[in-house]
């Protein structure tokens, strides 16, 4: 016989509420009862919002899209940790079974000058797009999927490029870093493209352009604390930051890109 479902969690949420970019914002406390441990964190926020709507209050704005951990849209600080307490998961893949009955959960948006809060938990991450625009691409039109054996890539390079390409651009690295540095994000993009033959031709201009834009956006520098790597849901290695540094020094000292 199937055991009767245990009653759900009773939670206290402290959620950052901010009506627009200019508003100062504050924490608001909400009580939730009977939250199923099978829910994802975002489903729990959906339940909260449904209750707020039925009470005639403004629902909490938060970013989300695919809800299966691959789009990079979701992401909030959960009790002071980007994407919550688990390693290698996004907020949408965090489940309520990770919490205990009676817990208080503090939910904050990513905080960085380069990620201004637009509303509640939603931040403007277009600074990442502008960094990509400065070289995070391959200019040559590589066309549709080529014949697999026409451009051989050694397996080690494939793997390194693929590991770096796993970055979903969620911004957890920036959120975790004490300097709000975007180095792990930029390093993943630079490392991904520079390891492949299609991206190799522009490696100098790419790294100079992307680092230049990263600095102009107001992200901090790297102190090598490793917080970004621990917070990354895509398991991007800190090793990429060393690759980025190497690429930058090489492009500055030993390339003809002005």
């Amino acid at each position, binding site marked *: 016989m199937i055991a009767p479902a245990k009653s759900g969690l009773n939670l206290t949420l*402290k959620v950052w509420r901010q009506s627009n970019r200019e508003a100062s914002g504050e*924490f608001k406390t909400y009580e939730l009862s009977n939250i199923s441990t099978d829910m994802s964190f975002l489903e729990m926020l959906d339940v909260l919002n449904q209750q707020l709507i039925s009470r005639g209050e403004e629902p909490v704005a938060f970013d989300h899209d695919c809800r299966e951990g691959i789009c990079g849209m979701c992401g909030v*600080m959960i*009790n*002071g*940790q*980007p994407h919550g*307490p688990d*390693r290698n998961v996004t907020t949408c893949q965090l489940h309520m079974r990770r919490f205990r009955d009676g817990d208080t959960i*503090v939910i*904050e948006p990513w*905080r*960085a*000058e*380069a990620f201004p809060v637009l509303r509640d938990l939603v931040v403007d991450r277009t600074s990442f797009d502008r960094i990509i625009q400065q070289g995070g691409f391959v200019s040559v039109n590589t066309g549709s999927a080529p014949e697999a054996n026409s451009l051989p890539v050694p397996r080690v390079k494939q793997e390194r490029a693929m590991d770096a390409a796993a970055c979903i651009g969620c911004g957890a690295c920036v959120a*975790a870093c*004490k*300097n*709000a*540095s975007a*180095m792990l994000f930029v390093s993943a993009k630079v490392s991904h493209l520079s390891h492949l033959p299609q991206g190799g031709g522009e490696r100098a201009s790419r790294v*100079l352009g992307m*680092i*230049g834009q*990263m*600095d102009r956006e*107001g*992200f*901090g*520098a*790297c*102190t*090598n*604390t*490793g*917080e970004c790597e*621990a*917070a990354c849901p895509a398991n991007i290695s*800190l*090793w990429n*930051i*060393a*690759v*980025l*540094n*190497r*690429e*930058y*020094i090489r492009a*500055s*000292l030993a390339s003809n890109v*002005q």
Partner: protein
Amino acid sequence: METGSANPQSSLTNRLNLGWLGRMLSSSVGRKFVMGVTGLLLCGFLIGHLAGNLLLFGGPEAFDAYATWIHNQEFLPLIELGLLLLFLAHIYLAVVVTIENRAARSKRYAVKHSKQAGMPPLPPHNWMFVSGAIVLGFVLLHLADLRIGLRPDLAFPEWDEHHPRMYEMTVAVLSNPLSRVVYIIGTIFLGLHLSHGAASAFRSLGWDHPKYTPTIRLMSWLFAIVIGVGFCSLPILIPELAAVAPPEAKIVTPAEP
């Protein structure tokens, strides 16, 4: 108007084609690169300085012989100038980078916890600027004590350029209880600063590789421990050893013929 009056400085950089250097030194990655290089060169100085200072354990003759040798080197002013430039560059960049890093997040989190497993409370990498500032304060006091000799409260021996009685001076400084505590604290914070800085510098230089990183990490840790414990042992042990065998009793060697 403005097109006619070119800035002479910018035209010089243009003529020498040094725009790349300016861009590199004003970028976050370039600045950390220079911080890493200057930090590692200063680590090199620490090795030499500790090796020399450990001669304090050899007694007055050994240490004063070393002090005499190094004070009579013609290149000493050049080394001192180089060290000064390294310090100034490292400190200037630390200030600039720290200000920018603080500005990158003006609104702090209400709650913030590390996601790294086994992170001690207050890990040294979170307060490198503070530990660096404490070390700087200590270095300035140390220079005032033993390089410039600004200690009117202590009975220093007469300064003799050719036979500096550095052992006696060092013991005089370290025997002062307040100085002794300051030297112990300064050297402990130096060790803490190095426990992150030494390994971190290699990554800032782009030197992080599965082949080398485990060795670099281990060597950097050992380096921080050796430097920290080595320097810290001097204010702890030297006054005790000197009290057992007072230096006055040994300094009877006449000037060499």
